[in-house]
């Protein structure tokens, strides 16, 4: 069972949820070989009706304490551009498509998506270009993401605050 997991973190991203749950998007996702779509909709006001047929299942929920399980079982993650969501997916080695929310102030999230795309770790798009990207993308070209190193932070801080080893 191939699964797509869509996440918007703690935000509201109605455009993405509406786009991905539209009938022709669902058809496209199914035609690409996926038979399960899980939508984590956060604070959004668009709440698609979950359903289950022989060939396809749609699950919808707002929040879970941890998205770890859903990311783990996903074959593709489609996420808003929040750092937490992106990093969780990348650290689990999942192919990641980031959708930029064009309605956000300053759109600061775009910087991270662009940079990680430049480094070959994900694809990014907007709601309107998502269907096209899903059709054309080659997930095998994505590169593994090396995790961050918080121990460098603790080493630095220990030194400057004068903590004894």
């Amino acid at each position: 069972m191939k699964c797509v997991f869509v996440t918007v973190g703690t935000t509201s991203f109605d455009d993405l949820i509406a786009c991905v749950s539209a009938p022709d998007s669902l058809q496209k996702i199914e035609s690409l070989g996926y038979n399960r779509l899980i939508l984590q909709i956060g604070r959004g006001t668009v709440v698609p009706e979950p359903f289950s047929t022989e060939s396809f299942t749609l699950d919808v929920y707002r929040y879970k304490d941890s998205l770890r399980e859903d990311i783990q079982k996903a074959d593709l993650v489609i996420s808003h551009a929040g750092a937490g969501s992106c990093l969780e997916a990348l650290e689990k080695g999942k192919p990641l498509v980031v959708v930029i929310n064009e309605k956000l102030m300053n759109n600061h999230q775009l910087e991270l998506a662009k940079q990680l795309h430049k480094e070959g770790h994900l694809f990014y798009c907007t709601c309107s270009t998502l269907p096209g990207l899903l059709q054309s993308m080659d997930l095998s070209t994505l590169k593994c993401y090396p995790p961050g190193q918080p121990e460098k932070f603790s080493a630095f801080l220990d030194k400057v605050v004068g903590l004894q080893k």
Partner: protein
Amino acid sequence: MVCVLILAAAAGAVAAFLILRIWVVLRSRDFTPRESLSILVVAGSGGHTTEILRLLGSLSNAYSPRHYVIADTDEMSANKINSFELDRADRDPSNMYTKYYIHRIPRSREVRQSWPSTVFTTLHSMWLSFPLIHQVKPDLVLCNGPGTCVPICVSALLLGILGIKKVIIVYVESICRVETLSLSGKILFHLSDYFIVQWPALKEKYPQSVYLGRIV
């Protein structure tokens, strides 16, 4: 006439003194060795909290007690913090320093709130932050960008200016910020003791910042 002149001179002297104090506090670096230090952590919503907890996860138990400050409307962060602290206590049962505190202050600014009204809500947050900082008197304040951290850091600075306590202010710009600083970052770049960026482009633009690579 003389009264006005005296008042003006007094005001000038106070202003000069304050400026001198600000300069001294911003410049001073506290290198005295120590065994522990109390830390106040500002947790913003969503990814901000996730990032800051990753940073905290790397710190030893010498950083205790831990005081968390969250926006009063942010239950998700409270849950994440409680999980984090529980996990930490589980992993190290011998650890005596499991005390942590969660403090709530009004949000400086909601997502998409207009900038003019933000001035008022920020001033209101400032009014409530100072008593909190004054009560906790942390050794170190750690934050990573949500608007909530500006009043907290300014209050911490004020503790130093008033000669009550020098608080080390550490700001870690979010990993989302590759080319440009956030508004909080732009403000706190001048007020923090250590300003950490996670991408080389920012280090180039702000040479005085600290660059350690990606740390979350």
